[in-house]
């Protein structure tokens, strides 16, 4: 176990490391976490949590391999090298969705979406107004269309905070957030919902009544104006000083760079 508790803030952290450390803080002992494809930030976060504050965080790599011991973050988060040395292979149809749908387990889920709107609805389906004649065909909802509707607490990560990815209203809802805001999600009979949005500029949460996205903390050196500039809808004006996102510690940075992801796979998600 590393001496993470007494580690000072890192001096040379980078934004990927900050996002990983912030997301890691969302997962604790007693949680079960799974990842999908192209999920370098969540995978690194789960791993970092397990090496520091949450050694008993259960990790189901690729929703396939239980408690894996990969050598390092590989080029794919949905291929066998990630679930090396698993203690169990979880069969998708028979096992994984039983665990995920049951409600007792896998209560938190990390979501990456091409579009995310002010009420936390996600879109990975189509860009354009006509589903059957899209301007752009996106990959598809995969598991998000389920995770948004079955009571999970959703943690969005977005390494490229810009007005194209954070929009006033998604072109198409393929992951249910707070729908039209207010009580709409609850009225639809849905529990859980979006908790946080962690981007390369800020951490956002959702107002408990309006369910509108708002800035919860600004990353060091980032202003509210910069975040507003990069966001495709109007953010509620801050009511007072906005907290600064905690920078990762020297030990967290060391673990990410030397142990978890020495090949810098996490950087592939940035700058798109």
């Amino acid at each position, binding site marked *: 176990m590393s001496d993470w508790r007494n580690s000072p803030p890192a001096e040379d952290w980078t934004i990927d490391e900050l996002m990983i450390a912030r997301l890691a803080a969302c997962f604790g002992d007693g949680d079960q976490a799974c990842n999908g494809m192209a999920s370098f930030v969540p995978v690194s976060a789960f791993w970092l949590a397990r090496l520091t504050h949450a050694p008993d965080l259960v990790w189901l790599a690729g929703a396939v391999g239980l408690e894996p011991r990969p050598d390092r973050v590989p080029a794919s988060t*949905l291929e066998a090298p990630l679930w090396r040395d698993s203690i169990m292979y979880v069969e998708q149809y028979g096992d994984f969705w039983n665990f995920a749908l049951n409600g007792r387990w896998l209560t938190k889920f990390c979501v990456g979406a091409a579009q995310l709107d002010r009420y936390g609805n996600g879109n990975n389906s189509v860009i354009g107004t006509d589903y059957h004649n899209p301007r752009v065909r996106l990959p598809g909802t995969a598991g998000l269309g389920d995770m948004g509707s079955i009571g999970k607490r959703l943690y969005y990560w977005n390494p490229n905070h810009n007005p194209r990815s954070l929009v006033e209203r998604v072109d198409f809802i393929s992951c249910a957030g707070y729908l039209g805001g207010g009580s709409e999600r609850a009225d639809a009979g849905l529990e859980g919902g979006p908790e946080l949005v962690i981007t390369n500029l800020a951490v956002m949460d959702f107002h408990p009544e309006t369910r509108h996205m708002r800035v919860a903390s600004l990353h060091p050196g980032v202003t509210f104006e910069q975040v507003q500039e990069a966001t495709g809808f109007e953010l509620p004006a801050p009511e007072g000083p906005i907290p600064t996102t905690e920078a990762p510690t020297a030990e967290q940075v060391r673990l990410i760079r030397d142990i978890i992801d020495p090949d810098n796979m996490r950087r592939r998600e940035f700058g798109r």
Partner: protein
Amino acid sequence: MSAEKLATLEDAAALVCDGDTVAILNMATQAAPMALVRELIRQERQDLGVVCLVGGIPVDWLAAAGAMNRLIGAAVSMEQFGLCQRYRKAVEAGAIRVEELSETALNARLGAGARNLPFLPTRGLIGTDLIDVNDNLVMLDDPFGGPSVVACKALVPDVALVHAHKADRFGNIGYEPTALWPDLGIMPKAATTVIVTAEEIVDSEVLRANPDRTVLPGFMVDAVVEAPFGAHPTSFSPRYGYDTAMHLEWIGAARDDEAVAVFLEKYVTGPADHAAYLETVGGAEQMTALRNWEAS
């Protein structure tokens, strides 16, 4: 005596008719029955509907060849190699119609198909727009008074294509110790016809030594074909990794119509048979590198 199921790639692919709905067992870069997919393109199959959980390069090749006009699935992506651009272009041009389902909705449609039920419900998708654009999904009141669910209409694919590690000549299918690919548990069981390619055809005694690893019984399998590296360029754990160079070559070619035609001629329609294909993609040297996950 059990019936013999051994077939050639040509004869097995000929079981697929123009217009069929074809379930392809695979994930983004894994375990796709590529030898069969190439053979379907060689035989110029048309108007296919493709069913997949997460379709990767097989979907892109079928789209590039103009062999498919509809897709039923949860996602299409080659993960680290990006979106399937030929598929995407065909959808945007209106040449492929997409029925996008969440994973539980696809499982429910296939599960209902396998069990001869009119539908199965899911709690996924509620609140999304995917229900509104799909006639095969209908909100349904719980007859027992609980929250509403989404009824997912039964889906019975005409054919399922599966790649496996081992098969005997009677069509019993064995998997080696590895993660079971997602819809192996349901997709073939829903389909009317099941075609399996296997890394090797083995004596039944080999399967009898580990009956817990037999994943499909011969009575439901219509044809088995021996096709070593039959999932190439996707991975087939634990035997080999995905072929990074070939995925990169494809995404390079996929940007340009002419380059696509050259690529398909070189790798899909050109090689005389599966053995010739394996030579074209690098032969024994490349296969060794893939076995060692040195080319992934």
